């Protein structure tokens, strides 16, 4: 009996489940019972964090600073001065880019200290006409790649202008144009550093793990405390969020290089700097570019969240539109964000792939054709704007700047569409919604909340132990213990309930869709393209259509999570299926397996390590969406994180809540990763 148990893992799981159910039945729910709920021993932790942050910010390391107002030195805290100047610098850069697009005098004033420029309307730096920006960007696209990119870039800007989102879009663009290069640079530096030093790599690794799973919301409060509110704070939060994947991919790319490449560089006579910048980084650029792509996507995914701490632009407007349930407007704004994301991504890729022709004997005109073209566009655009000022005398000058929300709009159409669906399917939707909430969501939620903490620990640590031995079991236990000792265990259970349900649904859909699509090369390609497109959308976008249909309920959140989190499950399943070697398929066919047998006995086991990693990603995606769901009103950890934003003692709360979410993710990550690695080893794939 015991011998059989030791051998058969599924028997162990059954036994574990039995114990779990028994524990649930035995342990009585009462406040004082430690088996039911652990006492919130680290309740004070958030407060401690808050006060230490305050101390660092306002009392630590006082230095003398010259104050021009009182004409004397004054003692001020070092940290405060440092963050203030960092904020100023970043804000200056963002404003600078912004003023190129939209005009203004802030940067000039900063430089010169001339106040008269702000006071005199006529001295304002004029905005570029939108036609010039669109034309210039199209020329850039043409110069970097060719007519197709030029067309796409041009279309993006025309769309933005025509739909009256010029101003917020340029604000967002200027914000991204500063935040993204900062994240890329920081990621590159850290990645290279980790590549050069094992110690740095060892220190960075766990930090990156936590950062990647931690919900972006929890960065916001500390950022606000250190840097205040505004575009710069948004940019800093975005950089913090967008850097980890860049570090990861830089390190990965550099590690994958064959040592001969570095040797070839050395034998060509490179010094250290040349070796790094001319040989190693360019050769690893495939992975590094994926990192850049991730950074751009993350930056645009953050625009909405950054707007919560004062970043201007599309994100803010989108948030307002969602709150007012103006679905059509939200959709148009969403498309703007997606277009900007894709455009920046394509432009950065094209820039990295650019080629030089050395032997073309070029005339002056040919060599400077793009500058000349821009010159022409500039002159034509300005003339058009002048003509516009004559034509639209009373009205807005549509040829110069199309004012916010004064362009075309398809809002009414979408609203009508929503109304129509609402009218036609009202009962069906309502019925489904109510059924889902009453029959599924509420019972599952209640069941989760009815779990005694002791039983939960036995179950999760048991799974960890069975899968990966003592080490994994203890790691899982450690992560959960942290959460259990805070006062938010119940909230965490609600987060876990939403996450488990959506991960289950996503995984089922993803594996099914991935399996079916991978049967044929064409469907594979189509599905991968769909996955790419979906991943480009900032996670917020998914809330728009589901809110149209299901309003502000858990159903909306669940469906939005499922749509978002199905992408990695599908993608990894396809990759797993494609990784099955054709010889194995042939061997199977020659052994006379049926199609279903082949799937179950060959393809699925071989693809399993990939699929497990896909589920892992699905968990991460789902967790990040659960938090975003808080914006439409769930009552889980995310909601509390959102609340901590407006709380003056929110730093500690926000961080600890963020850690709670991250630890749920890390616990699951531990188990799935170990499992996937074991299968990989067993199959000889590692």
């Amino acid at each position, binding site marked *: 009996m015991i011998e059989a148990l030791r051998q058969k893992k599924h028997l162990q799981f059954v036994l574990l489940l039995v114990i779990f159910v028994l524990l649930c039945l035995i342990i009585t729910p009462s406040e004082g019972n430690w088996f039911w709920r652990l006492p919130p021993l680290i309740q004070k932790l958030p407060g401690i964090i808050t006060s230490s942050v305050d101390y660092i910010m306002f009392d630590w390391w006082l230095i003398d600073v010259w104050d021009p107002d009182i004409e004397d030195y004054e003692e001020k805290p070092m940290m405060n001065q440092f963050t203030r100047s960092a904020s100023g610098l970043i804000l200056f850069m963002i404003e600078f880019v912004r003023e190129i697009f939209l005009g203004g005098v802030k940067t000039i004033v900063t430089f010169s200290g001339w106040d008269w420029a702000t006071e005199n309307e006529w001295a304002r730096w004029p905005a570029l006409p939108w036609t010039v920006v669109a034309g210039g960007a199209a020329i850039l696209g043409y110069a970097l790649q060719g007519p197709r990119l030029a067309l796409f870039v041009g279309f993006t800007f025309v769309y933005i202008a025509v739909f009256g989102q010029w101003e917020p879009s340029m604000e967002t663009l200027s914000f991204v144009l500063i935040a993204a290069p900062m994240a890329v640079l920081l990621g590159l530096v850290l990645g290279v550093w980790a590549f050069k030093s094992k110690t740095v790599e060892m220190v960075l690794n766990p930090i990156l793990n936590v950062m990647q799973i931690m919900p972006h919301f929890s960065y916001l409060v500390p950022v606000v405390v250190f840097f205040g509110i505004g575009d710069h704070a948004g940019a800093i939060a975005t950089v913090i969020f967008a850097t980890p994947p860049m570090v990861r991919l830089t390190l990965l790319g550099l590690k994958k290089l*064959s040592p*001969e*490449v570095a*040797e*070839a560089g*050395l*034998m*060509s*006579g*490179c*010094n*250290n700097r*040349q070796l790094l910048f*001319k*040989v190693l980084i*360019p*050769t690893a*650029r495939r992975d590094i570019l994926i990192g850049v792509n991730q950074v751009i996507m993350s930056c645009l995914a953050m625009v909405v969240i950054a707007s919560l701490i004062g970043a201007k632009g599309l994100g803010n407007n989108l948030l307002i539109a969602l709150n007012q349930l103006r679905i059509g407007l939200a959709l148009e704004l969403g498309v703007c964000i997606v277009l900007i994301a894709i455009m920046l991504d394509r432009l950065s890729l094209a820039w*990295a792939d650019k*080629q*030089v*022709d*050395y*032997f073309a004997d070029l005339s002056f005109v040919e060599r400077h054709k793009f500058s000349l073209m821009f010159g022409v566009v500039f002159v034509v655009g300005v003339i058009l704007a002048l003509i516009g000022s004559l034509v639209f005398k009373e009205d807005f000058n549509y040829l110069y700047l199309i004012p916010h929300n004064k362009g075309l709009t398809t809002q009414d159409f979408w609203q009508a569409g929503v109304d129509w669906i609402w009218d036609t399917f009202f009962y069906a939707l309502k019925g489904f919604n109510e059924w889902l909430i009453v029959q599924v969501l509420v019972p599952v939620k209640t069941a989760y909340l009815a779990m005694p903490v002791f039983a939960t620990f036995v179950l999760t640590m048991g799974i960890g132990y069975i899968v990966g031995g003592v080490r994994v079991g203890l790691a899982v236990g450690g992560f959960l213990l942290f959460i259990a000792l805070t006062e938010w265990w119940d909230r965490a259970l609600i987060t876990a309930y939403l996450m488990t349900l959506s991960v289950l649904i996503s995984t089922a859909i993803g594996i099914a869709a991935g399996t079916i699509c991978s049967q044929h090369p064409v469907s594979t390609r189509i599905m991968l393209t769909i996955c790419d497109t979906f991943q480009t959308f900032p996670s917020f976008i998914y809330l728009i259509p589901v809110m149209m249909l299901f309003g502000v309920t858990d159903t909306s959140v669940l469906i939005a999570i499922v749509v978002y989190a199905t992408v990695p499950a599908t993608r990894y399943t396809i990759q797993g299926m494609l990784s099955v070697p054709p010889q194995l398929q042939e061997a199977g066919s020659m052994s006379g397996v049926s199609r279903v047998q082949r799937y179950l006995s060959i393809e699925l086991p071989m693809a399993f390590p990939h699929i497990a990693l896909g589920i892992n990603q699905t968990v991460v995606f789902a967790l990040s969406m659960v938090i975003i769901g808080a914006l439409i009103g769930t009552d889980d950890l995310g909601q509390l994180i959102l609340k901590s934003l407006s709380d003056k003692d929110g730093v500690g709360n926000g961080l600890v809540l963020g850690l709670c979410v991250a630890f749920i993710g890390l616990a699951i990550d531990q188990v799935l990763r170990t499992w996937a690695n074991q299968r990989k080893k067993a199959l000889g794939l590692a």
Partner: protein
Amino acid sequence: MSTQAETSTSVEPVIRCDSVYMIFGDNAHSMLKQANGVVDHAKFHEAGCIVGVNNASFEVHKGELLIIMGLSGSGKSTLMRCIARLNEATAGKIYIDGEDILSMNDKQLIELRRSKMGMVFQSFALLPHKTVLENIAFPLQVKGVSTEDSMQRAKEMVDLVSLTGRENYFPRQLSGGQQQRVGIARSLAIEPDIWFLDEPFSALDPLIRKEMQDEFLRLQDVLGKTILFVTHDFDEALRLADRIAIMKDGIIEQLDTPSNIVLNPATEYVRKFTEEVPREKVLKIEAVMDPYDPNEDFSDLKVQKDAIIETVAEDVLNTDKAVAVVDAAGEIVGALHASHIVHVLFGGHADDAAEKAS
């Protein structure tokens, strides 16, 4: 040692290695000190050290092509990397043109590589983001040569390795053979004195490999570089080398001319390599000729002393009389007897067969 080496000892060799050791492992230095120069493979392995090169001493002279031959793990690439200082030798001295390169600082080393060294790699190691032309110009550009000059020079190199018309291709668009031509052109762009080739043709198909070897011989004919060439292919070594160093477990088992190695293998290990070698394809007439005796009756046929036996064997063996051997100047330097040729080519094998039979 071949006579050639002995006569030129008065001139400073281009490369001189003096008891070079390369041992990998954290405690390599202390282990080597304890061992007092006598390195035992197994003992070092136990202590967590891997012996790459074990007491290597040799010289390479100007214009000479030395091939380091050995199976994988024999330390042949490691030895080359020590001389290029891609690996830091654990002990010993390495001189390039009389200068001790192990005591050079980074700046001097970079200068040395920029002016004197070129290297070709087994996996080509081209920069994937640069075109053929840019790859070839790369060593010139890091050296600080202007774009115009370096591209001009790169263009010449492209023509030299017969890649004309493919200047703007990226490495991924080229076949293996073409990629290695780019690698060769890149290594020659700065006109190095010393040319390192690390298994340059091992990753290529047999036919392409043969073609590249011919190409290599043609280039060497024109350029006359001092060459250190690493290979695991004994036939390749015999075909190309002036001298061959055969390595095993980090030790140079024998260093000699191809014909001496085939005729007089120094160790059992070397003999195993030479066994299967078709001698008529390796040996030159020189190796089988007898001293010249003016009284002998010669046929009208005359053969060059440098000729490979295979190329003249049919004519020589069909002649009844002795055949005169002449040098490049046409002077008679020796006599060929059919019986002697037959003995050298097949005699050894007959002994083996007899041994096996008994």
